[in-house]
């Protein structure tokens, strides 16, 4: 499964960010999400959901081999990760997110919860 992004449908509601943080941290805190919404206002008035595209560059760069491909998604092993930040630096799409209270960088594991709540078709689950 993959997440298809249709940014023209995004309304910036951040429901996706809320459910992501609930799913992964059991917390109400959209800043701890693996998806963020870029808002370009007033001109041109566009929202862009940003999340991992599963390119694998982070896995190649990880000095301690904490990132591996599990199914369709790259996953960080929190036991191995030293939170050195190299994966965040090398990410070509700036979609490895950091939060002061998170033990590792935050990246999408394709849990699909965001696609379940998105009501506009901005995020959909596809094979």
């Amino acid at each position, binding site marked *: 499964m993959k997440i298809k992004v249709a940014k023209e449908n995004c309304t910036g509601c951040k429901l996706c960010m809320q459910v992501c943080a609930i799913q992964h941290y059991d917390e109400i805190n959209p800043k*701890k999400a693996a998806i963020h919404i870029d808002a370009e*206002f007033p001109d041109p008035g566009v929202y862009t959901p940003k999340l991992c595209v599963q390119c694998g560059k982070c896995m190649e760069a990880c000095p301690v081999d904490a990132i591996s491909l599990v199914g369709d998604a790259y996953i960080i092993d929190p036991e191995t990760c030293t939170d050195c930040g190299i994966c965040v630096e090398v990410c070509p799409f700036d979609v490895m997110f950091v939060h002061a209270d998170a033990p590792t960088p935050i990246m999408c594991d394709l849990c699909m919860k965001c696609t379940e709540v998105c*009501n506009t078709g901005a995020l959909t689950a596809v094979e």
Partner: protein
Amino acid sequence: MNGFGGTILRINLETGEIKRTPTPEKFAREWMGARGFVAKTIYDEVPRDADPLGPENILIMAPGVLTGTFAPAGSKIGFGCISPATNGHADSNMGGHLGAEMKYAGYDMVVFERISPEPAYLYIDDDTIEIRSAGDYWGMGSLDLEKRMKDDLGEDFQIATIGPAGENGVVYSCITHDFGRQAGRCGVGAVMGSKKLKAIAIRGTKSIPVHDLPALTKSTYDIIQRTKTHPLMEPWQKYGTALFVGWSNEHGCFPSRNFQTTYHEGWEGISGEKLAEEILVTHKACFGCWINCGKYSRARIPGKPDIYVEGPEYETIALCGGSCGMTNIHDVAYANYLCDNLGLDTMSGGNTVGFAMECYEKGIITKDDLEGHELRWGNIDDFENLVRMIADRRGIGEVLSYGTKGAAERLGRGTLAFAHQAKGMEFSGYDTRWYSAQLLSYCTSDIGAHHNRSWAITADIEIGQDTPEGKAEVVIYLQHIRPLFDTWCCCRLFWGEVDVTAEEHVDTIGYLTGWDVTFEECMQISEKIWNLTRSHYLERNGGPGRQFDVAPARQLEEKVPSGPAKGQRVGVENFEFMLDDYYHNRGWDKNGHPTREVLEILGLPHVADNLEKVGLLGEPFVDGVPKVRGKRLKPKAM
């Protein structure tokens, strides 16, 4: 404390002192947030003779219990103070993302005290709080400044700003956020300007503690899945509030040319459909909302720069559009942009310009007053000239900066009869001559004629448009419904439009906080707020209270000249009947003064004492006040 940020901030703008205190759970439980926090704090702290634009007034911003949580559209934040438009309690809320951000930074209320010696803005980055110079920002438009501050501070800061109108004390200035969400009413922007506070910038990264996250999550998930397929979901998503421009015209309640009539010839040119067809750029949602009623638009008018604006929403279309005689959606969007950037409420602003256009039509305002310009119905250039004069308070703009009541008092010549306001706040975008419950709602409202205090148009249809009977009790009920949403701070649209019940929201509060809270308890909080702000208004303005609950003569006496409501008017007798009925059913005396009995039922004995001291406590009811105050009626969606 679960469900809240945990801290209240007090900021003395004069001395720069910043105080942090824990949010008391008793205070949170008894008032729930935003409108409740404002009502209680303003009542307790602002001297009764304080000038609304002077140092003794305070400005409050406060989200509510549901803001920033995984509740449906928990997006709202309230602002409050004493209003320079009404000289009474003021609160006005906005959606967007500011309220959620504030709770993530850990704050439940900020109280701004006194006046800053220099233009300033408040900077909050989690625990870092600074009063910073806004010298470079002073004079900027609201929207221009938000963009500038995002560039200066970072896109992830949520920003609220005022425009030149707020700096200059126009009494219907608003506070703007998220490029088009406003705390628009009551002149909260003017009070912010009087404090030399140009903007507020917040970034928060903390979590909101929650009592039962699995229950909360499941409840909201279920509501999401259920409402996605509701028949009204798609039209709301597609057109937003502008959807109802056609409906209001067909039902004879749309203001046309300063409420001269209630069917607007050419409304099709400013409809929701026209908006979607011609100017829509993107749909825009507030935090945590999947209805996304916000419409973000681009107007293109030959000879003017292309502009981007959120809206126009129904109210803006009705008041900047219909009431100013416009029939082109680009013109309305441009008018919307002008008001937003100048920092004027599009509702009172549009209403006031429409009033001025009628004055111009009647020869009461002339080209000499308008620096050589005209003021023709539907003319966007004339509209632009006037709103710039108002924001700067130049010439006739100074007169109109007080709103329609203040302007009519200064202009004289019978203009008060067509000044569409109550207590100094302008009507929302509904004419009431065929909708007497809505007129009663406007005129008994604590803040003046705002539809969001209680929207009764469909209740009028349900009860019967040709009778004044049975209206008062329903208006009271509806006046208690709205404070639920204004204190909880979730958008009322899920309740009003897609059949999420108020009880479901109450359950959400329970999951969030762990409180054993009930719908009835929340309704009692609403009634408590309503009685508190009424008493506060009386304490500030004297009595008898009935003299303040008055309707514009046009609504009472002039028959609608055209359209579906042709021939309708409310009539003085019917209005006075409804007012008597209303006071009685509230447990207030014939002067509209709350009685000790009702105040004590609501836990406000000290307010009864205060009213008694100034001779404004209601005469007691011989047989006691009604046990149930208000009659339940869930109005249908439009």
